[in-house]
């Protein structure tokens, strides 16, 4: 089981969290201007690297807040966790 450091609650067991997939995917600024291909890109296409990945986690059984993490997908090791309004350290 992963030990995940919630930026507010500190290190907690993985079972308290829900995974939220890739982080920093902004809602399109001008949705009306998007082509079908742009929508496909926004809705479905995702990075899927082996190595450091910026992703979202939700402390659903804790403070119920979303936060971001950098985690190495080749080892599952967390490099950093940071608040939504922060940049990764």
């Amino acid at each position, binding site marked *: *089981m992963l030990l995940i450091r919630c930026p507010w609650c500190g290190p907690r067991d993985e079972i308290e969290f829900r995974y939220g997939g890739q982080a920093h995917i902004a809602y399109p600024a001008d949705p009306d201007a998007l082509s079908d291909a742009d929508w*496909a*890109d926004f809705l479905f296409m995702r990075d*899927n690297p*082996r190595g450091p990945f910026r992703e979202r986690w939700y402390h659903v059984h804790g403070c119920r807040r979303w936060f971001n993490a950098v985690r190495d*997908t*080749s080892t599952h090791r967390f490099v950093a966790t940071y608040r939504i309004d922060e940049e990764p350290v």
Partner: protein
Amino acid sequence: MCAVRYWRAAEPKTTYEVVIVGGGGHGLATAYSLAKRHGITDVCVVEKGWLAGGNMARNTTIIRSNYLWEESAAIYEHSLKLWEGLEEELGVDVEFSPRGVLNLAHDLGEVRSSMRRVHANRLNGVDAEWLTPEDVAAFCPLINISPSLRYPVLGATLQRRGGTARHDKVAWAYATRASELGVDIVEHAEVTGFLRGPGGRVEGVSTSRGEIRGAKVALAAAGHTSELAAMVGLRLPLQSHPLQALVSALYEPILDCVVMSNKVHVYVSQADKGELVMGAGIDAYNGYAQRGSFHVIEEQLAAAVELFAIFAHAKLLRTWGGIVDVCPDASPIVGWSGIDGLFLNCGWGTGGFKATPAAGWAYAETIATGEPSELVRPFSLERFTTGALIDEHGAAAVAH
């Protein structure tokens, strides 16, 4: 049973008509089908590790075709028919065992969607039956149908033609027959890049054993597809997740069918040797480590013990994980990549073992003719732009 003669370990030539990246079940079945059905024998299968050591060696071997949607039913049912003739086709005993697959329903919503699936299956020519709890107990006496369970068994769908097969033997049989037909199988050669021609056309691969040119390059790399696609700047709707499974110690035969439960998320069968083979759902996070978190195993065992009280006595022998490539609609992508010379077969996620014969069949046809086989036409990459998704999440019972 015929004696198995294994494949030649080939030295890579400099050029082939088709280079297949990935020597798992899908890559090997594709190579076989290219050679056998299309007469294309100038084919190389490039595998970074040892043959079929990826998901092919790690899956729980469940075979069934009772998917909800027509597009899925068509390809999985074609696959099941190929399984039914596979031992004859390949001349090898792959231990295909149509022992029946039960999908349990534990609440009213599941009962309704299961019945709906039974009707949809029948309309699509897929054998399907609805069983009451008493029928379930008659078919599989080991299952606890007590109404006092936290998730009581309210019924099940049964596909009698579904079952299991020996994954390794399937891979070795395809490899052996493909090799006999002239296909080169090159192990321990990792693809690290693509050779590009005019207009960005893909014309081959760079590997840890040198460059290999191919007029057509076909990916069959399962969980590693995104990594390869990124090398040509292609972003795909795939996420790679750990998927774990486990076996118990060896026991006397106690379970002669496959039992799957979506709600409590466990699926189990007993191998001929006697191990109980069980799998769970994916670990939620992306991961390439071929291992997952232990709480997933714990939850799966809790579910299994509730359904089969006798399992509480079983000893856990080992657990392992694979890397499965999952699409947003839980359906695969097979066809042209949008880049000349490059084809995709990926996104089979947690359920591609059963599809091995049909995936090979349809992918080979697509590569040989340059036109999508009818079986995979709906499974194009384009569907994410057109919106014609094939949503098998939940719709197809548990996703294996």
